[in-house]
């Protein structure tokens, strides 16, 4: 690593001020940033830790749904969201391994927006609201492409608020090496319709499969997906899968998620 200074604020206000400095970079669980620093691929002057901010931690039920603090580790979500939003808890419990889950946070995950990360599928699939230290952003407006989001420079994800669905499930097919999602599908059924969010598959990052949403809103069963497909031309081509393979997984995993949702 290159040398850096390190500050650990205890409030959102302190963190906001610290991030205004030249060369300041936020670090939450560090599960992406720390390896990046070790490989000398980034050289921030100051790391501003967000893990000491109590008001950004925890899982609680409120109006608007289940609220998850931006600095809440995956292991905590896996344990504490299980009662009210089991599909979300299960997704969190399937990220990485126990060591990763003890450190990685939802805020870090969605701020980074890795095209194969799991949380973006849950956030988009739930129609969640991303709350920052400046504003509230609807999920549909938040994810803008590979590794890119609507966040401005220095903006902190302080909380994500999930409306709780009637039923939901996340089915993830592991990329065999990284165990990120080669493709992962989050299906959630709400009173006003079904949402289907797909991660790991598309060149544009996480996306909603609107054709499937419409079909499932009419008939929430795996059979509703039978005649549908996504266009392979939009799908990622890499060492671990061809576009046609990913398009196939989108379809298969959507059906399996619907079946798992009950």
């Amino acid at each position: 690593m290159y040398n850096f200074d390190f500050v650990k604020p205890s409030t959102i206000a302190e963190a906001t001020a610290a991030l205004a400095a030249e060369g300041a970079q936020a670090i939450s669980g560090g599960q992406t940033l720390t390896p990046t620093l070790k490989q000398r691929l980034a050289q921030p002057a100051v790391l501003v830790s967000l893990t000491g901010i109590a008001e950004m931690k925890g899982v609680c039920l409120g109006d608007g749904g289940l609220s998850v603090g931006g600095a809440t580790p995956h292991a905590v979500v896996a344990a504490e969201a299980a009662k009210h939003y089991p599909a979300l808890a299960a997704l969190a419990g399937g990220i990485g391994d126990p060591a990763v889950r003890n450190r990685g946070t939802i805020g870090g995950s969605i701020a980074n927006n890795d095209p194969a990360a799991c949380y973006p599928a849950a956030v988009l699939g739930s129609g969640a609201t991303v709350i920052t230290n400046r504003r509230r952003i609807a999920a549909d407006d938040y994810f803008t492409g590979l590794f890119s989001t609507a966040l401005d420079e220095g903006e902190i994800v302080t909380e994500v608020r999930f409306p709780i669905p009637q039923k939901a499930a996340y089915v993830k097919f592991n990329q065999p090496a990284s165990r990120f999602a080669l493709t992962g599908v989050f299906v959630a059924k709400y009173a006003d319709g079904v949402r289907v969010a797909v991660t790991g598959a598309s060149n544009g990052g996480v996306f909603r499969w609107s054709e499937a949403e419409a079909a499932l809103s009419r008939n929430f069963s795996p059979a509703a997906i039978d005649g549908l497909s996504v266009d392979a031309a939009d799908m990622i081509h890499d060492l671990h899968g061809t576009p046609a393979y990913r398009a196939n997984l989108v379809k298969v995993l959507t059906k399996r998620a619907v079946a798992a949702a009950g």
Partner: protein
Amino acid sequence: MPKDHGIGASSKRREDIRFLSGLGHYTDDSALQGQAFAVFVRSNVAHGRIRSIDTTAAAAMPGVLAVFTGEDFKDVGGNPAGWLINSRDGTPMREPKRPVLAHGKVRHVGDAYAAVVAETYAQAKDAAEQLAADSDIEELPAIVDMAKAVADASNRVHDEIPDNLCFDWGWIEDNRAKVDEAIRNAPHVTTLHLVNNRLVPNAMEPRASIGEYFPGTGDYKLTTTSQNPHLTRLLVAAFVMGIPENKLTVVAPDVGGGFGSKIYHYGEEALVLAAAKKLARPVRWTAERSESFLTDAHGRDHVTKIELACEKDGTFIAFRTETLANVGAYLSNFSTATPTFLHGTLMAGPYKVPNVYVNVKTVFTNTAPVDAYRGAGRPEATYSLERIIDKMCRELGLDPFEVRRKNFVTTDMFPYTTPVGLIYDTGNYQATLDKLIDLADVAGFEKRRAASAAKGKLRGMGLSTWIEACGIAPSRLVGILGSRVGLYDAATVRVNATGNISVMTGAHSHGQSHETVFAQIVADKLGIPESSVEIVHGDTSKIPFGMGSYGSRSLAVCGTAMAKAVDKIIAKGKKIAAHMLEASEGDITFEDGKFSVAGTDKAKTFGEIAFSAYVPHNYPLETLEPGLEETAFYDPANFTYPAGAYLCEVEVDPETGKVDIASFTCADDFGNVMNPMVVEGQVHGGVGQGIGQALLENTVYNEDGQLLTASYMDYAMPRADDVPFYTVDHSCNTPCTHNPLGVKGCGEAGAIGSPPAVVNAVIDALHRGGLTHVTHIDMPVSPSRVWSAING
């Protein structure tokens, strides 16, 4: 009643005490007074001409003590090739120089062309980055594909080698016409093109080296991650640095895995020694994982066409193979032996096939050097054989178990000379197959298949009956075949005055339980507690000259040397006892740790004899020297030939292509077993690596020679949930006829026999599911590849 100590006991590993509690001592753990840190500057292009390197800025940076480039080593010896192979036309192989630091050209991504030594690691890294920025390297087109490398004479990895060919080898060339004829006339010929995928060894401990120089004496010391410290010393001292061996000590402390990758000398070892001399300070280097991916010798990487000619009833007539074997940018020490004499010579398998011909062309490419990796040539041979036999059975509608049985060498045929030059001493291939069929409950397969089908999964079983040649090796034979080294080994057994024992061995454990198992053997032969035997290894100033640990030789060769040294101890002990007991030597027997006069109760314990040797008051000094320490060097008469039968059952999800291993059963013949627990562990580990190769691991260079699988984000290692609980058996053993322990070696077997069992199981699953259009899927049989094969 299973034994609880000595030969045949599952004695718990004494090494585990330190390895499981963080008390091991690995190369990187050493902290030396005044140590400086080396960082290498490595090419980020696969092929380039070095136009200039301006060291001025880097040399002036904080903490920098020295900067080296290839220019500093151009008159120093290159890293030598250890085995001379002649092409079919009799010409010797091409041996381009492999310098300590690349000079003139860089030839693979990761090829080190400079090095910086500084007070701290961070300072060395900073200066290395500066040096990289100040290096002018003209990028040249990369040579990555082997077929293109051979065909395009305009693009050369080594300027003096026009066709990028190291050699074109045939075995046995004189038989070629006969084999071609047999195939032409055969009733049935099956053909298969397959790839044996390149693997990164991924030892848990990365390579590390520390060089020291002592100006007062002119002595050097190299502490390094080596599987064979004496061989490293010979190569570095005599061939590279040009210093006398008696001025260099090489120490390999605890080594955390090697799998072959730590056999070889690497340029980093020479660099730290040269830097230590220049600075008169210790200089150390430890690889980052990305350096390990880029520069540890890779394994396998064969592209093969194999043909099996047979009768309609499946009786084998001939095997013929053509292989392109990648050696990478430079020859590593055994790169040339692995695809030839460790591969072609196994191409008859455990079968009595009369005709075999193997052609191997080894090709230079702009990729990391390739050399032996767990199995070293034998997995490649077994994979080709067991895959094509499976394909033939499907073509002719024959039962794979019966076809093996029909073609096995039978117990009355030993010693059996194969058409590819090996003499199998003994075996019982039918017995291991029978044991396998029973243990794996082949009879119950259909019921399991139906249960899988009810869950939407396709279930298949895959057979592999394998043999290998290890216990490397008879020196005269390998010398005739081109080896430039001998392959004997040595042990010194030193009995201390109070009766406990130090055994100095040329073997070097990097995970093989030597300290436990060797102690069992010595203790068993001497009738003393295992705890009174200490095994010393890894330090050239302490151990006799041995060739180290690889090729499943530590037990068969190093262990035999040890046993022979113990025999000498016993022989001398008898002389001492005869004197002390006032009997003739011929009347002395040795049993259970006691020397006795036959037919009487007059006896002396081993301890009493030992003490007498060191305090020789009642001792035959006129005819016998004091002391009780004996050395034996042992050169084996032949390779050893473990063999076995493996069955893999898989479930395939046809919608996603995911393959899960439902069970894996092994019935192995390793000859006599010294420690069953250790043998099982070896098979578990070997099969785990074989499953990794079959389903998960792949080393991918793009057309520019960039390594795309350079981290665990893209290189899929087998994890605990990728492998099943194995069923492992070694009861059907036929003791080796030519070493006194009757052992054959077991370290590589699992990695040799398992990949074809896995792939055969996947093809079987698909065929049973009606997907008979899939005749082959190359390793790694990833979900994406399975699905693509199913869906055309």
